[in-house]
């Protein structure tokens, strides 16, 4: 180092070309690429969307499956859309962890000192998280196929089901950005998200039908946004029966309510998220 430090000219300096700051799309893609390299370097980052859901599918299908009665299909078919929806809800978790980590390690500061749109940090984070979650959905679809799950209603319905999952994931990303900007450490994110998201994904029709829950709990579960998503995918894929006439209003029109929930949650969390991120990174 001491030898090289005495160099009096940097050859690259004279050749510095004109700086042309990348567009929002261009810089977001660079950030996405970087986040995907992270996954490549640390495959254990994918555990939450691979081994974990497979384990869930198998545990629920084989351990609880026998004791949970569902009408209209096998429990395994009933289960797969539920676990996929849970994985999308946890997309918020993935975004929050990634963002807090970048804020904490000063990477966000480094990005912000560059001539790029600051939105590209969030866009890049969101897109890579959606890719992350999609890997999980694919893994689960394959696991589902292996244990007897099928999408029975045709190509269009099948695609629409996955599209709803992604749409819901998009709303969850804003929740993740909000939490990630507020929390000061990855441990805090873990604590908060686990405590909040775990009950939300269970007090729903994800793993068991709501009919057998106590009335008050069934009402909460049926109005849970996640239940709409689960019901919508089940209906689209022909996994189990449509909601009965006793079910709450959202479950009678699950596709419409899922879209409304996704739009509504985005409308609430996006402004909160952007403000929290700006505040966190302004001072």
């Amino acid at each position: 180092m001491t030898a090289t430090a005495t160099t009096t000219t940097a050859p690259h300096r004279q050749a510095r070309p004109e700086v042309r700051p990348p567009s929002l799309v261009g810089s977001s893609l660079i950030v996405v690429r970087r986040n995907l390299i992270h996954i490549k370097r640390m495959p254990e980052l994918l555990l939450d969307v691979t081994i974990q859901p497979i384990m869930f599918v198998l545990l629920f299908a084989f351990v609880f499956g026998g004791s949970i009665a569902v009408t209209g299909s096998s429990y395994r078919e009933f289960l797969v859309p539920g676990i996929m929806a849970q994985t999308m809800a946890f997309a918020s978790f993935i975004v929050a962890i990634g963002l807090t980590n970048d804020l904490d390690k000063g990477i966000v500061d480094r990005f912000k000192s560059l001539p790029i749109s600051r939105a590209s940090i969030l866009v890049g984070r969101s897109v890579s998280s959606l890719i992350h979650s999609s890997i999980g959905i694919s893994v689960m679809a394959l696991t589902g196929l292996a244990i007897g799950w099928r999408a029975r209603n045709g190509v269009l319905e099948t695609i629409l089901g996955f599209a709803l999952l992604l749409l819901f994931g998009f709303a969850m990303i804003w929740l993740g950005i909000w939490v990630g900007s507020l929390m000061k450490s990855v441990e805090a994110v873990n604590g908060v998200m686990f405590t909040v998201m775990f009950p939300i994904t269970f007090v729903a029709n994800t793993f068991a039908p709501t009919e057998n829950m106590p009335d008050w709990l069934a009402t909460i579960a049926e109005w849970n946004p996640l239940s709409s998503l689960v019901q919508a995918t089940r209906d689209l894929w022909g996994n189990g029966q449509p909601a009965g006439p006793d079910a709450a209003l959202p479950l009678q029109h699950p596709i419409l309510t899922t879209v409304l929930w996704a739009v509504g949650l985005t409308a609430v969390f996006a402004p909160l998220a952007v403000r929290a991120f700006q505040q966190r990174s302004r001072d």
Partner: protein
Amino acid sequence: MSTPAVEAVELVKQFDQTTAVDGVSFSVPTGTVLGLLGPNGAGKTTTVRMLTTLSRPTSGTGRVAGHDIVEEPAAVRRSMGLVGQAATVDELLTARENLWMIGRLAGLPSSYVRPAGDDLLERFSLADAADRVVKTYSGGMRRRLDLAVSLIAAPPVLFLDEPTTGLDPRSRNDLWDVLRGLVREGTTLVLTTQYLEEADQLCDDIVVIDKGRVIAAGTPTQLKDQAGAASVVLTLTHAVDLDRAEQLLRTCTPDVYVEPKARRLTAQADGLADMSRIGQAFAESGIPVDDLGLQRPSLDDVFLALTGHRAEDDADQTGEIDPEGALR
């Protein structure tokens, strides 16, 4: 005179109840090194964050390469690089990938970033580790990569926030050499430091900040002169001679300070003339002396004289909160 490379004009930053920076002004001529010197929580990092557009000033402004930090933040970001307090390189990427990513985000074409990156890796002795994941790097290597990454866009102005914190002396010296090399090429540096030696070694000008205000400014020599006269330091061979030596020394200069354990006597002196007079006196008295030297006041003494506390004192001890640490 040409426009200064960096200017701070009455910068103020308030966080809720605290005023972290309270009217800081300075100016850095192109191609020189300015040191922002001060203890933890003095407002150095906040000042740098405002000048690098990471934090918006509550009032006041600044200019980097002629661009206003409040009015033209995008132009400022195109003309400067920042080496943050923690090494902000991506741990899961290799050195090459880090350079590529930041170079591309800085708006440079791939065809330029690749060779320029290789060049920097060579220059910072990281070529052998170029394709290793940064997580496996030592602290010194990380720091060098951090600096290399900040230089990929060859910015005319470089800000460094405590660049050598946590480095061993050897890595610190290496980094100093690199920084001197940059200055020879015409880069303007603004660095914050708590180490007086670092400011002394590298900086053309020093601005001393304490509690958000500039309390002194000048060249290292000017600041040392402010701290007062030099002193003669004398170490005896035998402790038994201490009393005799003290009496002898008092005949030359009235101000004598004795440290019995170290067998050391310190006396006010005006310069070389005083020292040779004292040397002469001791030679004639026959008191054996191990060491005799003239000591100029260090920046440490300057700092003590200016603020009443040592530079390395933690701000926590004075009961102050540290807005910089809290918000990082």
